[in-house]
């Protein structure tokens, strides 16, 4: 992916040198034409066309913000309820992610999810231990949310 971006910048500079115009506008024009060229020649690269990954990254950022707002609504509901009737607990969550940065990202996403907080990661990086605010109903729902998070993170790294 980094190679494709570098190639795109080189193509933009090539465009500037051909046009003899050294201003930001011609850089942007050259960048867009270079994007077109890279898209046409996408099957010669090892990884995917890089705009897909940029798009996946924006989707992940959006998911982060949405989960932050949702978890705050959940916290406000629990704190302002007259009776404390939740049942907290720690459950283990298996993960398929392997790289360190993916696991870090997943655990900060889980921490920002409504009612969950990561406590520990096992030695072999395969299990996350998550403290849940209300373990009764949430567990199935949360594991389904996690499937979407894991998919979104894999989408960025593919």
């Amino acid at each position, binding site marked *: 992916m980094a190679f494709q971006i570098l190639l795109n910048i080189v193509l933009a500079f090539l465009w500037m040198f051909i046009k003899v115009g050294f201003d930001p506008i011609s850089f942007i024009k050259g960048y867009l034409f270079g994007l077109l060229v890279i898209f046409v020649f996408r099957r010669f690269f090892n990884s995917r066309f890089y705009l897909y990954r940029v798009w996946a990254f924006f989707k992940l950022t959006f998911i*982060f913000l949405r989960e*932050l707002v949702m978890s705050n609504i959940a916290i406000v509901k629990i*704190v302002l309820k007259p009776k404390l009737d939740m049942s907290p607990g720690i459950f283990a969550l298996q993960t398929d992610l392997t790289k360190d940065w993916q696991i870090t990202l997943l655990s900060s996403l889980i921490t920002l999810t409504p009612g969950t907080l990561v406590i520990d990661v096992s030695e072999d990086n395969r299990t996350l231990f998550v403290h849940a605010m209300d373990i009764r109903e949430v567990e199935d729902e949360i594991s389904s949310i996690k499937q979407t998070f894991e998919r979104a993170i894999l989408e960025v790294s593919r």
Partner: protein
Amino acid sequence: MTVIVNFLIGFFILAGAILCLIATFGVIRLPDVYTRNHAASKAATLGVMSILLGTFLYFYSFEGHFNSRLILGIVFLFMTSPISGHLINRAAYNSGVKLWDRSVRDDLKEYQKKLHEE
């Protein structure tokens, strides 16, 4: 246009202040370290983030001053606060702080016991 911007500024700053207040209530009211950490690490994050966003909008629309440091502050807070919540929780668990008596499950205890036996 200014009416909308005014409304947004007021909304962000007020919502942030209320969220911080609720986070404080949560820290006082909730029973143990872990549940308190839920309130502190989530509600305070969004509260401070929206106060910063409101401040940014105010200076941008009334003074015409684009303060990029406030944006950087929002991004840094967003990246670091879940991790600090995790670290506090982990330190508490490893130094043996008990869960609330009405807690239901503890998978981590079994895992650590297994790790000790090996």
